[in-house]
């Protein structure tokens, strides 16, 4: 129980209070799910003893397969097998080069439609299939429903990609405790394993994305100083270059089956070169196409040099943003299967002039870190560790001349809020549109459009008289929200968001509802059960809070809370969902003052401890 732990640190949870929380590494090529079981972070295996689940979904007319069985169908049924969907998440057709994907992609509302035998599937839907599979796997192993999950995303994912990941989780029926950045998750796994302090670089090269983060670890505080990367650069690109080299002197064939076979061969060659110095290829792709070539480590290194150089450019930038020299780094952690490539390891080691840290399994370290974090967020463990992450890309708004005005600079510690004042340009103007973009470029067209916010309800005034303060808030998941207030009248504007990418709330709701068959769920009774659960949790927490801290309240404040608490408690025996919901909201609102006072008290307590120590020095 989070409230209790503030006032009584160190109290461990009793077995029956342990919440089932998981960490999910939703990777481009592979996914993993892990949980803290008997105090040990463990990756959960499926019935085939696989820890690593290929991020592949194969659709047939009435069902779908996820994982190795789906991957095996890729050669024979490439049109209905979706892999590397992470490359499409949070994007629309303008952002990608359809030719580089072997699937048929179409424009679909604000997102991308992938053609399958079941019709058009959005990247969010495909991702949710993978998440559903992982969820079922974990629930089976852990013996019951999951309370929540921490899902990892590349540090360099923008707002749209993060939102899409959260939408996929919602569709899969997962409660997202937090989205955390992959390098930060790896740092958690290493930091706790080794209990180290200092400046660390996390170099994370996955199947489709590259991130580099610079972190400072000290006394349980994991502070990200800077992050950089490329959400379109990963092991897959090394495969692509190699595949192109393999057919260079042969026929140019664009059939999806041939492409897939080539990529598979290239991947195998790449992986073999990790253990062997020279690889011979002798493969028949079709009856007319046969590849006979040999390649050694040096050749591969030369072929892919430009990709590795790109990663080092990001590393340099991250160090500069963190204002730390390569020489002041205490350790470099290699994360992601692609860091097994000898050419990559050599380049990074040479850059930092020190041996690399890779004693934890690079495939599992992100999921392990996420599981540790999930365990803490669920309230199962002592809160000795805190992650302070940053926003990877600047947020700005469009101003006159289609120029970007930066509101929140990149690498700002989260959570963060910045306010900007606007005014009207016409007499009596009651609305305005704010276009928010993300990126480092100066022109709007070179940045990613996140969405258009329409502010309504501005009190009509003379042009230029209205002072509208718009506050941009970015939360700990890296997601942005906007509020606006007209300062002279204190009128809060209502805000309508039109996201530039992805599905709207209504679309997601529709998808969720259609996934419940009438045999599975009675919608109304499910909604009632949820309302009662929310209400009883609030009753319990409010009771606990009153028991420990009622002294902080004035007699009137206490009376109001107790009255609303009593009303809510009484409503729990009825089946009136609407009433229960209303009374829950009311108690939430009334008990706000108690939550606020407890928070201020925590701050004072945190500092008073320090004061006593410094006096003793």
């Amino acid at each position, binding site marked *: *129980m*989070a*409230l209790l*732990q*503030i006032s009584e640190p160190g109290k461990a949870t009793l077995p029956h209070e342990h*919440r089932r929380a998981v960490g999910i590494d939703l990777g481009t090529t592979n996914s993993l799910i892990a949980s803290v079981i008997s105090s040990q972070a463990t990756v959960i295996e499926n019935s085939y003893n696989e820890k690593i689940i290929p991020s592949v979904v194969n659709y047939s007319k009435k069902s779908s397969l996820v994982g190795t069985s789906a991957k095996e169908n890729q050669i024979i049924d490439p049109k209905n097998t979706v892999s590397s969907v992470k490359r499409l998440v949070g994007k629309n057709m303008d952002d990608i080069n359809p030719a580089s994907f072997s699937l048929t992609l179409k424009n679909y509302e604000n997102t991308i439609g992938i053609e399958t035998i079941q019709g058009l599937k959005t990247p969010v839907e495909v991702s949710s299939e993978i998440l559903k599979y992982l969820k079922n796997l974990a629930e089976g192993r852990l013996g019951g429903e999951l*309370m*929540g999950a921490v899902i990892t995303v590349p540090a360099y994912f923008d707002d749209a990609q993060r939102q899409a990941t959260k939408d996929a989780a919602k569709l899969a029926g997962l409660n997202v*405790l*937090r989205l955390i950045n992959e390098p930060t998750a790896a740092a958690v796994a290493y930091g706790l394993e080794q209990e180290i302090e200092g400046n660390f670089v996390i170099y994370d090269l996955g199947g489709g994305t590259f991130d580099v983060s610079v972190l400072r670890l*000290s*006394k*349980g*505080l994991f502070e990200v100083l800077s992050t950089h990367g490329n959400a379109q650069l990963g092991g897959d690109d090394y495969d692509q270059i190699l595949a192109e080299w393999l057919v260079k002197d042969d026929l140019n064939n664009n059939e999806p089956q041939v492409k897939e076979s080539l990529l598979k061969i290239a991947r195998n060659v790449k992986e073999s070169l990790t253990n062997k110095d020279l690889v011979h290829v002798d493969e028949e792709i079709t009856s007319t196409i046969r590849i006979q070539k040999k390649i050694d480590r040096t050749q591969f290194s030369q072929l892919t040099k430009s990709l590795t150089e790109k990663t080092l450019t990001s590393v*340099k930038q991250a160090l*500069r943003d963190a204002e730390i020299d390569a020489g002041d780094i205490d350790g470099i952690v290699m994360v992601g299967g692609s860091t097994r490539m000898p050419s990559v390891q050599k380049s990074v080691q040479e850059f930092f002039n020190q041996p690399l840290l890779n004693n934890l399994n690079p495939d599992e370290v992100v999921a392990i870190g996420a599981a540790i974090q999930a365990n*803490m*967020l*669920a*309230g199962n463990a002592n*809160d*000795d560790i*805190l*992650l*302070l992450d940053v926003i990877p890309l600047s947020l700005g708004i469009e101003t006159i001349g289609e120029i970007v005005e930066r509101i929140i600079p990149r690498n*700002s*510690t*989260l*959570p*963060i*809020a910045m306010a900007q004042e606007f005014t009207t340009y016409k007499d009596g103007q009651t609305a305005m549109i704010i276009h928010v973009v993300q990126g480092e470029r100066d022109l709007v067209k070179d940045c990613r459009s996140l969405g258009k916010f329409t502010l309504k309800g501005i009190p009509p005034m003379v042009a230029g008289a209205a002072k509208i303060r718009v506050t941009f*808030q970015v*939360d*700990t998941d890296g997601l942005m929200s906007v509020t606006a207030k007209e300062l002279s009248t204190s009128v809060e504007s209502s805000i309508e968001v039109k996201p530039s990418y992805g599905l709207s709330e209504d679309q997601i709701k529709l998808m969720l509802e259609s996934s419940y068959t009438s045999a599975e769920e009675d919608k109304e009774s499910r909604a009632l059960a949820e309302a009662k659960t929310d209400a009883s*949790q*609030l009753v319990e*927490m409010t009771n606990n809070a009153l028991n420990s801290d009622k002294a902080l309240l004035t007699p009137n404040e206490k009376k109001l809370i107790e009255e609303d608490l009593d009303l809510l408690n009484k409503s729990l025996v009825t089946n009136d969902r609407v009433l229960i919901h209303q009374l829950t909201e009311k108690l*939430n*609102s009334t*008990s*706000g003052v108690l*939550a*606020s006072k407890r*928070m*201020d008290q*925590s*701050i004072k*307590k*945190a*500092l008073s*401890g*320090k*004061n006593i120590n*410094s006096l003793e020095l």
Partner: protein
Amino acid sequence: MSLNYYEIFNLPVEFNVDLKSLHERYGEIQKSIHPDRFAAATKLEQQHSLVKSTQVNEAYQTLKNNLLRAKYLIELNYKNDPLPLSSDFLMQQMEWEEELEEIKEIEPLIVFKENIKMNVQKETLKLSKLLDQDRNWEDAQISLGELKFLSNLLTKTTELSHTLSDN
């Protein structure tokens, strides 16, 4: 939060701040109020935590940085608009900017950078005395204006050194 930034961290209201204590206290506070501590709590507590944690971040970033801290300290005590900078000072800035534009090699750049760094240090000491000893807000504002110019110049110099070393 009704506390000012110094009060949040229980530090004396001065320009000279013990950055180590600031960082330690920042860590202690965030460990108890950060949204991660409320991931399993009610929505309202999560909202409060988000707002407070954001405010603490803002306070920390302000007090951590010399320029922002000086600006904040002046604002706590003095509400007037700053007076203009001296033309001597502005001329010197222009000369230095022109000099920087002419530099194409690393060695002269290093010499130039050391000179600017020294000026930044001198100006910072001057600002510190005006704020902490003299409580002279009007002159401190001017000194802060000069320090901003010098810091910008130092940033441009550092950027050029990166460009030169990359090529």
